[in-house]
């Protein structure tokens, strides 16, 4: 099969699975997950074939695998859609294929397949456990199967379809379609347990917040289309087109932006929403309300990666007009927002106790890294970090899900009322859940950039080296500091969760999760380590050059001009070593002796700052005051009271009043006197006449006869008289 055809077919299996499960196999849980996994496997296989063919093809960046079809007629021309496989999309397919497949597999174990039905489980609520009796007649509470098991696989199937569509598409329009499908799916999946009020709030929040970004992105797409009449990458990335866009001033000449700058900024705002950058980051932590595989899906494999993928894809446009290493306005914006988000989210993660929320903020922070990297022009480093992050963050999320699952098992076993997601209720899990521990440790070390053997180190080091090498000092210092905090909170998380002694009975009774959950962890852990070795700078001392820097060569070739590999410099390396190891050590030292019920040492160390961090800089509250409540107020005052109740209802009432008074007049002056009057007159008249005439009805035959005689005589006289007068 040709690569182009393969790329066309790639998104199809998950979509078919979605339709099939929804329509036919919703009742059959085992069958539903079987076809879902098969579809993920097919798409994975297709992705791998495409990836392998892509790395074997010379000059793929200049001659990507592409094919187009006509879609919508636009006058004389056609709006074309198609597929586009260049090194960047091939590399993205690589991590999407793997992580999606792993997440599908993991979901089987996570949703307790093979466990009995719950005693009181309801659709739309988390399973609460089932009581089973063993052979001795002892009753145990064990985890119960998710009531909406098949539905979950249908949704993540649609989600995977959205992501594959986005990656293989050759134009911004189908990219946007995939983008929005994922928006819908994140809404459906975050609110998967829709009977929980918090889940409902989170789903709406996620949908509305990303929608803010999407509107701007759509504006950018529309502007781009009106400027060059095409949305295909092949048209957009032509040097002539980019030059024209860079030289045309934007509509209205806002801030002296060029058309390219304006479009780039608008598209980037889409990414701010999708990849949860400040100030639209608020939805992502709340999205933790969904099942954990969904968190992994949203925060690692697909949705947030899609945002970064889009800006990396649009990099030629974003950087159009840049000369002599000067940053264009969109790039400037990206580096500012990215760096700020990186440090901002990292500090919040310090004060979170929920194991998944820490990861959520670390995701925001790491996405900030990528955005900042792209902002300073570190194209390859950003893409490299995107890929490695997808793997280790999927690993961490799935690992945290495994931890929660294990602790939940303990909670059900002991019947304690503790939050199975609070890290302060854990501890000592390394002995209970060894596979989860090792893999989580690998993921955590990769996240904090543990030197030399984790993938995260190499990608993060490359970003720092780039920032240093091109003299972006502010970005460099901020990112380095963020890396330090990242290492610290990661070690805090690992120490609180796995090291030390169990702080609750539940943690003491935690259990390793089934193989469907641990196998994905092991596979992802392999990538979290091994992937970095293909991106080692060739000038790196001692080990540089043993494996060529494939990542740089491959992904760099996507661009028209291959970015130059940076000369090696010792300082960023030293900094990244110091911050990673320093953060890890400090985190371990602070939390290694955490006792049951003791408060977080950070509360003492940071004082009021801790409260500020704990409450996420009060962004939720601020947005509530600035946007949510005014929106409610406006909708209540203007829409409800003035427009709806005042104008619309007023108009209706006015018409009703007129109709009612016209009706009243007709009734009082026509219907009642004339129509009714005539009817009554006839009836009453007949009645009156009858009443008056009844006295002659005596019932006596002879009187009747007399009357007849009298009348007969009268008639006779009348005729005789008239006859005589003639």
């Amino acid at each position, binding site marked *: 099969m040709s690569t182009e055809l393969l790329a066309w077919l790639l998104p199809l299996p998950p979509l078919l699975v979605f339709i099939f499960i929804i329509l036919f196999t919703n009742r059959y849980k085992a069958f539903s997950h079987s076809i879902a996994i098969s579809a993920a496997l097919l798409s994975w296989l297709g992705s791998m074939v495409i990836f392998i063919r892509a790395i074997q093809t010379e000059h793929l960046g200049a001659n990507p695998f592409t094919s187009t079809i006509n879609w919508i007629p636009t006058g004389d021309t056609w709006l074309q859609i198609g597929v586009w496989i260049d090194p960047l999309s091939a590399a993205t397919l690589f991590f999407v294929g793997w992580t999606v497949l792993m997440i599908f597999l993991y979901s089987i174990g996570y949703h307790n397949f093979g466990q009995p039905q719950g005693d009181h489980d309801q659709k739309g609520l988390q399973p609460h456990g089932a009581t089973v009796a063993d052979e001795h007649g002892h009753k145990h509470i064990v985890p119960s199967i998710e009531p909406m098991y098949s539905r979950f696989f249908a949704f993540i199937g649609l989600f995977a379809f959205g992501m594959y569509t986005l990656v293989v598409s050759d134009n911004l329009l189908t990219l946007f379609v995939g983008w929005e499908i994922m928006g819908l799916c994140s809404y459906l999946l975050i609110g998967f347990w829709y009977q929980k009020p918090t889940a409902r709030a989170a789903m709406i929040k996620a949908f509305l917040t990303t929608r803010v970004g999407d509107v701007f992105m759509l504006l950018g797409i529309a502007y781009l289309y009106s400027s060059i009449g095409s949305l295909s990458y092949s048209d957009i990335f032509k040097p002539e087109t980019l030059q024209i866009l860079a030289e045309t001033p934007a509509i209205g000449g806002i801030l002296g932006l060029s058309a390219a700058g304006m479009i780039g900024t608008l598209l980037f705002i889409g990414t701010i929403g999708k990849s949860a950058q400040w100030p639209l980051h608020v939805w992502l932590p709340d999205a933790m309300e969904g099942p954990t595989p969904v968190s992994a899906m949203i925060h690692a494999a697909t949705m947030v990666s899609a945002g970064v993928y889009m800006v990396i894809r649009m990099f030629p446009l974003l950087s159009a007009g840049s000369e002599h290493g000067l940053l264009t306005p969109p790039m400037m914006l990206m580096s500012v927002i990215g760096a700020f988000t990186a440090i901002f989210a990292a500090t919040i993660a310090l004060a979170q106790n929920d194991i998944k929320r820490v990861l959520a903020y670390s995701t925001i922070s790491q996405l900030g890294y990528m955005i900042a990297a792209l902002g300073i022009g570190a194209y390859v480093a950003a893409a490299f970090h995107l890929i490695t992050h997808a793997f280790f963050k999927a690993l961490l999320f799935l690992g945290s899900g495994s931890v929660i699952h294990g602790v939940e098992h303990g909670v059900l076993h002991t019947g304690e009322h503790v939050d199975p997601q609070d890290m302060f209720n854990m501890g000592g899990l390394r002995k209970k859940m060894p596979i989860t521990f090792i893999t989580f440790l690998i993921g955590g070390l990769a996240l904090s950039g543990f030197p030399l053997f984790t993938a995260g180190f190499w990608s993060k080091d490359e970003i720092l080296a780039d920032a240093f090498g091109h003299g972006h000092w502010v970005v460099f210092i901020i990112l380095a500091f963020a890396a330090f905090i990242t290492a610290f909170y990661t070690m805090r998380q690992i120490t609180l969760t796995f090291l030390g002694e169990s702080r609750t009975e539940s943690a003491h009774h935690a259990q390793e999760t089934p193989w469907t959950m641990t196998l994905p962890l092991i596979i992802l852990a392999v990538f979290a380590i091994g992937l970095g070795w293909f991106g080692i700078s060739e000038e790196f001392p001692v080990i540089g050059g043993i494996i060529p820097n494939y990542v740089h060569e491959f992904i760099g070739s996507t661009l028209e001009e291959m970015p130059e590999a940076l000369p090696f410099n010792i300082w960023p390396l030293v900094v990244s070593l110091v911050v990673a190891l320093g953060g890890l050590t400090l985190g371990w030292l602070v939390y290694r002796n955490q006792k049951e019920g003791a408060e977080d040492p950070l509360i003492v160390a940071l004082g009021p700052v801790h409260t500020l961090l704990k409450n996420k800089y009060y962004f939720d509250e601020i947005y509530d005051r600035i946007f949510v409540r005014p929106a409610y107020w406006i909708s209540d005052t203007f829409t409800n009271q003035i427009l709806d109740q005042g104008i619309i209802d007023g108009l209706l009432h006015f018409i009703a009043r007129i109709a009612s008074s016209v009706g009243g007049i007709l009734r009082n002056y026509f219907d009642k006197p004339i129509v009714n009057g005539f009817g009554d007159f006839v009836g009453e008249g007949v009645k009156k006449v009858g009443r008056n005439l*009844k*006295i002659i*009805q*005596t*019932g*006596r*035959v*002879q009187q009747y*006869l*007399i009357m007849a*005689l009298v009348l007969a005589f009268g008639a006779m006289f009348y005729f005789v008289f008239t006859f005589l007068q003639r």
Partner: protein
Amino acid sequence: MIPLSWYLIFAASLFCIGLYGVLVRKNAIAILLGIELMLNSVNINLIAFWRYRDPEGIAGQAFAIIVFAVAAAEVAVGLALIISIYRRRATVVADDINLMKW
């Protein structure tokens, strides 16, 4: 030959007697008898006019016979009604039979 007017006077007297009987008698049977008298006075008129005015035709005789038949039927129905009322109310006084009063 007796002039026609005698017959007419006789018939008129008979009619008046019958009418008087119908109007003043209480007994229903007597009222019925009065009606018979009135019908027969009409018959006398018919026959008299036929005999004096149109002896060749048969219309007068035919009418007289029809009146007989009607009278016979009327008596049959009338007597049956009176018997029926008598059985029910043990009276044949016309004034007491006022079921048709309003």
